[in-house]
């Protein structure tokens, strides 16, 4: 018998008992919907994380140095040389000095910015920063410790009425001239990257009274991040004679770790959802067994007319597969809907503005395939039972 016939027949028997069909499908519907929701949200989460890392600089390598307490330390020149010596793996470096506890005043008022950073003239390109007004720090500023700074968009708006360039700013008692304003990156909110003041690291060192304790590198490529890291680590180890006094973190590797964690979590969640699919499969098996015994006489008739075992078997397997496939389609529908609602809710949360639940075509195809597979798998036993019925016993059955 043709697949088309079996398929139409299956649809017919489903249409006859709609409530039963729906109850049979329930496990499949729930399981498939759960899988779709989990994969959609997981993918959305991963995408958001990737985007955030991307904005941080995907090739960023952060180095923290806390020294050995002795006179040994890393000079910025050492790090610049490292970049110059390894052009295939390292692109640029900037010292990174955080200044805290100094007073800051605009011409109008005293305020506390989110952060005060001392960096080099390459920092903007390392972090992928752009300016909305003026210019960034320049080599001469760093070299001559000129009293110039660049401010974030929040500082510009809040304390300079959006006209910061050329204005004076007092930092730790020294008067600085604002030479540039950074483009907005976090909706100009307080405490974010938009609420910072950037000055030459040479100035920051004197303000903070400390040596450079951190560096930001740009690696050449995400894929060679671990090589880049090793190069930096080797150099630092040579300086300190030990690897306990510093730490090197690459964005790419961090992202890898986080992605691995996310994937593991998703596998676990999908496995839990799969239990529902299993229950759904057993439900289908149960109903198919009932259906086989209800239709024993029909099976007898079909056999008397020349149906072979495989004709009967495929009829019932196709029926089970059709049932679970329809359940799968309904589940996919519900899943997409739920993922969409959840995605909208999540994107309304703070810090998750860019979030979108993105159900991939692959996930949908997989969910559909699995639901058909479950039906076929769990339909096999009842179908085989039907196929093996003795024609004469089946015909006599009431």
């Amino acid at each position, binding site marked *: *018998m043709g697949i088309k016939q079996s398929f139409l027949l299956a649809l017919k028997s489903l249409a006859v008992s709609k409530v039963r069909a729906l109850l049979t499908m329930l496990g499949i519907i729930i399981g498939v919907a759960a899988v779709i929701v989990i994969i959609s949200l997981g993918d959305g989460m991963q995408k958001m994380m990737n985007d955030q890392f991307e904005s941080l600089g995907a090739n960023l390598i952060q180095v923290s140095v806390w020294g050995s307490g002795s006179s040994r330390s890393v000079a910025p020149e050492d790090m610049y040389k490292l970049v110059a010596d390894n052009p295939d793996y390292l692109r640029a470096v900037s010292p990174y000095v955080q200044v805290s506890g100094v007073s800051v005043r605009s011409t109008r008022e005293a305020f506390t910015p989110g952060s005060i950073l001392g960096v080099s003239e390459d920092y903007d390109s390392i972090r992928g920063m752009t300016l909305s007004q003026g210019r960034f720090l320049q080599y001469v500023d760093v070299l001559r410790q000129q009293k110039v700074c660049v401010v974030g968009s929040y500082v510009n708006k809040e304390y300079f009425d959006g006209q910061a360039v050329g204005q004076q700013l007092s930092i730790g008692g020294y008067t600085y001239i604002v030479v540039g304003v950074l483009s907005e990156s976090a909706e100009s909110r307080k405490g974010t990257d938009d609420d910072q003041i950037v000055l030459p690291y040479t100035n920051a060192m004197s303000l903070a009274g400390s040596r450079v304790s951190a560096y930001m590198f740009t690696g050449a490529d995400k894929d060679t991040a671990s090589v880049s890291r090793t190069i930096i680590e080797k150099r630092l180890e040579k300086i300190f004679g030990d690897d306990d006094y510093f730490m090197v973190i690459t964005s790419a590797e961090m992202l890898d770790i986080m992605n691995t964690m996310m994937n593991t979590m998703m596998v676990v969640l999908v496995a839990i959802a799969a239990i529902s699919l299993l229950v759904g499969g057993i439900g289908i098996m149960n109903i198919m067994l009932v259906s086989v015994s209800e239709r024993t006489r029909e099976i007898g008739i079909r056999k*008397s007319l020349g149906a072979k075992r*495989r004709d009967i078997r495929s009829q019932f397997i196709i029926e089970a597969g059709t049932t679970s496939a329809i359940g799968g389609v309904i589940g996919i529908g519900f899943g997409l809907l739920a993922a969409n609602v959840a995605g909208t809710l999540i994107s309304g949360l703070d810090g998750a503005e860019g979030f979108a639940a993105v159900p991939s075509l692959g996930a949908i195809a997989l969910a559909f395939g699995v639901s058909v597979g479950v039906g076929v798998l769990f339909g096999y036993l009842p179908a085989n039972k039907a196929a093996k019925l003795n024609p004469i016993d089946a015909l006599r059955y009431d």
Partner: protein
Amino acid sequence: MGHLIEFRQVYKIYQMGDTAVHALDGVDITIDKGEFVAIVGQSGSGKSTAMNIIGCLDVPTRGQYFLGGTDVSTMDDDQQAVIRNKMLGFIFQQYNLIPKLNVLENVELPLLYAGVPERERRERARSALERVGLADKSKNLPSQLSGGQQQRVSIARALAGSPSVILADEPTGALDSRTGREVLHFLKQLNREGDTVVLITHDNSIAVMADRIIRLQDGKVIYDGDAHDPRAVVQPHLPGEDEEVGA
């Protein structure tokens, strides 16, 4: 050229605890192409058992059954399915139509299992329905037809696969006498057109429609010959059991 149907010492024995029921007890029967044979006998005499074996729905416990010259008594389920599909057409007392399928789809079933392509299947099913005068009901469900009409559908279904033998087990049993006669006349006509018909009944007045009667009693053949021989319709009287006539 051998016989179309040949039983050689066929036994069908049901073991019921300690006792063995000999539903068929060493039966030798031959039926040739084009014959119209009635198998008669009282209830429990083994008629249906014989028909099930002829129809390849069941296998003998012992003995051989040749259909069209090949021994089918030792075939497996699927091989017998092919034989049923190609050579046999069944007409059951209870019609045995599939309620979910419409009349045309029911008639198409044997062709479907024979692998006949859709168009040809449609056509052959339709012409079989025309032969029984029900072409206009092809889209109806069986439940929307009268008993006589349903039985005619089952005849059309039996005819559709152009079988070598048409087997009818009490085909009029569920019908009133007038529609019953119609069905019988139809079988008679099929036989005149060349089909081999084996009719099973316990009713003498129906059996005489056939050319030849085979009478069974306790699984044994006690008469085999001309339907119009007076001995053919004489029921042997069993003590304590009254004969049911025209039930």
